[in-house]
């Protein structure tokens, strides 16, 4: 008799513990889905979406942004322009390390305010060296400092991009105009790409990006500067919501020294082609064979 009672009691305790443990195990999933609508969960990969699907997704993102952040935004889906291959060149002889480019990127691309995040990291290095290990990206003194030079580094939009080939879910790829993009709704946040990038150009959203509603840039793109969800990777996209409409990227417009030259590599009359043909040009970590679209040059 007492045996049966004991057995029942243990079974009862076991069942209770089991239910509690299951609830505990499922807790992260419940928290995870709090910010994730069913539509978003069932959404297909960007490149499998029909034009009608994409319009639906864009409208949903606009509605979500209005509801969750109180900001009225327009999310577009600008496609690559036929006959255009983007390239970017930066003049190390005139860059003075003022970080205006990083600041403009921060504002244009709706980065998290607390981390002061930006797709551009400006390295201060000893003249005559190219050593990122002994460089500073957090210098805070009048620039240019004596004996130093400054090298802004952002995504190099490699033609053979290691970040793309390591992605286990194909959430990142190279577009026809050369821009490497991320489908933030497909990224699983494994950060393989961040580890693979030799330029430290990718950023991970550890927290949900916080931006005051009035500071959110309403001119947004699906593959570019829409406010990213938590737990996904992001990167420089050459401001494709601007550049695919013929405009310059935000960092190029912000540069007070005129160090940045942006344009179409297929246009023989473009400034960038003149730079590549006439200046001393190099690419970063050429030996890795990543074939960057981002070039550095000197005046003399």
């Amino acid at each position, binding site marked *: 008799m007492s045996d049966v009672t004991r057995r029942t009691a243990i079974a009862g305790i076991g069942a209770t513990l089991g239910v509690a443990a299951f609830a505990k195990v499922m807790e992260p999933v419940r928290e995870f889905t709090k910010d994730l609508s069913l539509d978003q969960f069932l959404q297909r990969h960007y490149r499998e979406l029909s034009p009608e699907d994409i319009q639906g997704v864009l409208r949903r993102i606009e509605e979500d942004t209005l509801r969750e952040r109180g900001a009225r935004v327009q999310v577009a889906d600008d496609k690559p322009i036929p006959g255009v291959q983007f390239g970017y060149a930066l003049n190390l002889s005139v860059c003075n390390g003022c970080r205006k480019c*990083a600041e403009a990127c921060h504002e244009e691309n709706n980065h998290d305010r607390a981390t002061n995040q930006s797709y551009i990291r400006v390295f201060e290095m000893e003249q005559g060296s190219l050593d990122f290990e002994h460089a500073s990206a957090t210098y805070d003194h009048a*620039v240019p400092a004596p004996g130093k030079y400054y090298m802004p580094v952002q995504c190099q939009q490699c033609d053979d991009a290691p970040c793309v080939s390591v992605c286990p879910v194909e959430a990142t790829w190279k577009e026809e105009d050369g821009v490497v993009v991320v489908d933030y709704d497909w990224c699983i946040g494994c950060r393989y790409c961040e580890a693979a990038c030799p330029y430290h150009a990718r950023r991970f959203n550890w927290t949900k990006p916080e931006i005051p509603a009035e500071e959110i840039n309403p001119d947004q793109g699906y593959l570019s500067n829409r406010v990213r969800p938590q737990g996904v990777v992001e990167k420089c996209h050459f401001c494709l919501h601007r550049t695919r409409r013929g405009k*310059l990227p935000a960092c190029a417009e912000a540069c007070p020294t005129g160090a940045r030259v*942006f344009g179409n590599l297929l246009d023989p009359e473009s400034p960038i082609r003149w730079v590549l043909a006439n200046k001393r040009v190099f690419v970063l970590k050429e030996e890795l064979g990543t074939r960057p679209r981002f070039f550095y040059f000197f005046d003399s």
Partner: protein
Amino acid sequence: MPSQTWVVVGFLLLVGLAAQSVEPASSELHPVEIRNPPLLGKVDSGLRDASGVAIGIECATCHGPSGSAALASEGDESIHGEIALAHGALACASCHDPTDRTRLRLADGQAIPFAEVMTLCGQCHGPVLRSFEHGAHGGGRGHWDRSRGPFVRNNCVACHDAHQPAYPLVSPAPGPNDRFQPAAQNGAPGRHGAEEASEHE
């Protein structure tokens, strides 16, 4: 036979339409505009108008044909004592036309308007002028694709002070606060505070 003819005519029409729609984009380019600073060729009076725009004084106000003020190497303390020349061995008349202060003067004596300052600077800074002419110096705003909009460029004195052309020291915009690069230098607090930041050093 008539149906075949119509097909050919229709095809030709289509080709014609396609050619027409492509042509304007390539032939009608928006201009390259040169941005001049608001006080180009004027002296800052230090006064601002009702909307906060700086009021400039035309050089000819004092230095005009009937004006008596000399064009000396030393600045006139009374109105533009702030003009301290630190530009090689140049004197005022190296660039300004002493007979017409509303214009600049090239080394060969030819007078040019202030807006054409690039030609003047290019007399000594040839490689820079060459880069400028090819869009590789001076930056700009607007459109890389001029079939869609203008490209607005800076002229030399929009960025450089002609009298002290060396680019000044500036305070940089704030750096990143991310977890790999806490603001360590100068004790600026990073996201995890200055103490942890110094441990990472």
